[in-house]
């Protein structure tokens, strides 16, 4: 997909979100949790951008900041070329028609005391799009399009299974015909069988309504299945950004490599024969970030430079972006080549 010439649907410029966790007015020194620490990203119409990373690396925060559910600390968000950071709350509310979110937990993201009708109708009502019988009909259509029977319209969320609830969430996000949908871990809480249903549904809807997705997940297989491009986040920053094919064929960042190697493969023969990179230690605290490259504390290839200088996200000629002083393919580090489950990856595309 050649996208460079088009104006992106969404553009993030130096986006930062630092949570103030000092919590104390009189505290001498303020403490910040740097959940998102400078992200530049372009999302083009019709594509699916996947964001992966460990738990706590700032994926959800990024998603929330994009929708301004959390106010960014710095940086700019441009939607269709226009900044939405300066909008007043009322303007923003009107603008919300265009970008919607589907939440991670289908159990907690639906108000247990509202009926499906009200849940799906809420965005339409809030923006005074439709009312009365028309509204009801529209809700019925939406339910059908996500594969729910309209006869469920007066039920409460608890009367549905997890997959069905997630469909309600999707229907709600679709109600206003948005251009962009941020899917925050929409399948993580679901069973594999239902995961498949939802992933397929999202794919179908994307074609049908020409949607753009930002798909946030820590489940690599799912993200691989649905995305066109993938951004890998580590501790509030994007460390690698490439098309799905590039990323899975040849990851350039050691972190991506470790991530890929850690994914269990549901094939006993393959699983037990491949080489796994188990990262030591836990993700460092986002309050006291390590100096230099954020990953150096866990990186098997870390060198002196990594401790001192923070690498920038550089674009390779093929469009593959990586923030590493010693990207794997170039340095051809000791573990680089065999580490990739290359054989398995180069399957039919």
């Amino acid at each position: 997909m050649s996208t460079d010439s088009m104006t992106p649907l969404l553009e993030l410029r130096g986006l930062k979100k630092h949570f103030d966790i000092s919590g104390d007015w009189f505290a001498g020194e303020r403490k910040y949790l740097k959940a998102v620490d400078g992200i530049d990203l372009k999302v083009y119409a019709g594509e699916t951008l996947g964001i992966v990373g460990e738990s706590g690396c700032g994926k959800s925060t990024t998603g929330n900041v994009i929708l301004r559910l959390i106010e960014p600390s710095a940086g700019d968000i441009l939607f269709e070329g226009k900044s939405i950071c300066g909008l007043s709350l009322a303007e923003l509310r009107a603008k919300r028609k265009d970008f919607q979110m589907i939440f991670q937990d289908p159990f907690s993201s639906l108000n247990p005391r509202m009926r499906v009708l009200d849940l799906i109708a809420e965005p339409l009502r809030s923006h005074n799009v439709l009312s009365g019988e028309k509204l009801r009909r529209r809700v019925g259509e939406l339910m059908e399009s996500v594969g729910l029977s309209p006869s469920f319209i007066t039920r409460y969320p608890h009367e549905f299974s997890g997959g069905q609830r997630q469909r309600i969430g999707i229907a709600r996000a679709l109600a206003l015909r948005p251009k962009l949908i941020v899917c925050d871990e929409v399948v993580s809480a679901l069973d594999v069988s239902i995961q498949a249903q939802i992933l397929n549904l999202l794919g179908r809807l994307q074609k049908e309504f020409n949607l753009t997705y930002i798909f946030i997940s820590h489940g690599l297989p799912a993200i691989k299945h649905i995305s066109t491009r993938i951004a890998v986040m580590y501790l509030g920053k994007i460390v690698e950004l490439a098309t799905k094919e590039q990323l899975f064929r040849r990851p350039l960042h050691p972190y991506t490599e470790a991530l890929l190697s850690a994914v269990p493969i549901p094939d006993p023969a393959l699983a037990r024969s491949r080489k796994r990179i188990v990262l030591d230690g836990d993700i460092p605290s986002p309050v006291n970030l390590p100096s230099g490259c954020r990953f150096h504390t866990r990186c098997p290839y870390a060198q002196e430079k990594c401790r001192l200088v923070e690498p920038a996200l550089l674009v390779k000629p093929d469009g593959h972006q990586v923030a590493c002083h010693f990207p794997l393919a170039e340095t051809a580090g000791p573990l680089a080549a065999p580490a990739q489950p290359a054989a398995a990856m180069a399957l039919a595309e």
Partner: protein
Amino acid sequence: MTTNQADPARSGEKAPLLDVRNIRTSFRTSQGLVYPVDNVSFSLDRGEVVAIVGESGCGKSITAFSVMGLLGDSGRVEQGEIFFEGRDISAMSREQMRGIQGNDISMIFQEPLTSLNPLLTTGYQIDESLRLHKNLSRKQAKEQSIDMLRKVGMPRPEAVYAAYPHELSGGMRQRVMIAMALSCGPKLLIADEPTTALDVTIQAQILKLMQDLRSELGTTIVLITHDLGVVAEMADRVIVMYAGQVVEQGDVYSLFQNPKHPYTRGLMNSTPKIHEIRDALESIRGTVPAPGEMPRGCRFSPRCPRAFDKCRTEAPVLQEFCGNYQVRCWLPEEQEVTLDEH
């Protein structure tokens, strides 16, 4: 590396470590009795890693709780026996059971976030079973606990010993759970979805840890999960459960290579795989029936793409295939099932 782990155990002892025979577990609910586990049998040899897989709600955890005697006030094992080292533990009093719980059999729970008491230090929670079962003094218990924490690969075990669960990351908490479960050197460890709540890098750490422990201590492990990837990496044998019943059972290689039950096959096909790329995933339509509303005949029949009349009227039984392989399905076993039927 763990391929033949089960063999020595099987030949070494005649009686299996755990033998679950036809158990049926009931729960009292406001709608009357429900049976989330119905007619489940399996046996475990010493040193084996057996995985139980299945969708959410199919009775995996309840099976484990039945073995542990943790069904609570409203549930009980209504039928069948559970033999642990030859003794029927399903008939034991709560008092007797307490001597086995945490000592001979221990369990790692599904949610490391909620399964640790948030108001007690991790050290206290590990010490507890040592003091109870091994009659250790506070000091001895502390030493052993810290030792155990070190064994599960915890950095700075002394600090972790004094920490509260909320001060630890998810992976650390899960390791505390494991340390807790292993502290008394159990013969059987039931790990209920030990990695589901964790992300891949931490999951990899934990899985590695469990493999190491098994090879070091020879602990028998029951691994409950719905992640087929984890199963493929860890298990010697796999038990597939659906709606409270065992539908397929066999060694990991045969099962993954040639799953016989349509449900198992459905599960495999709906799993997105990192080493393949497909346009659309196959999915099993419908959902797991609730314990109160089981369909007639084969419980999977409403969702089964290959169900025929008999399936809808008559419940299949678990049939033995070659060796230790069992399937609960009416499909003529001879009819070779191929992976790519669609």
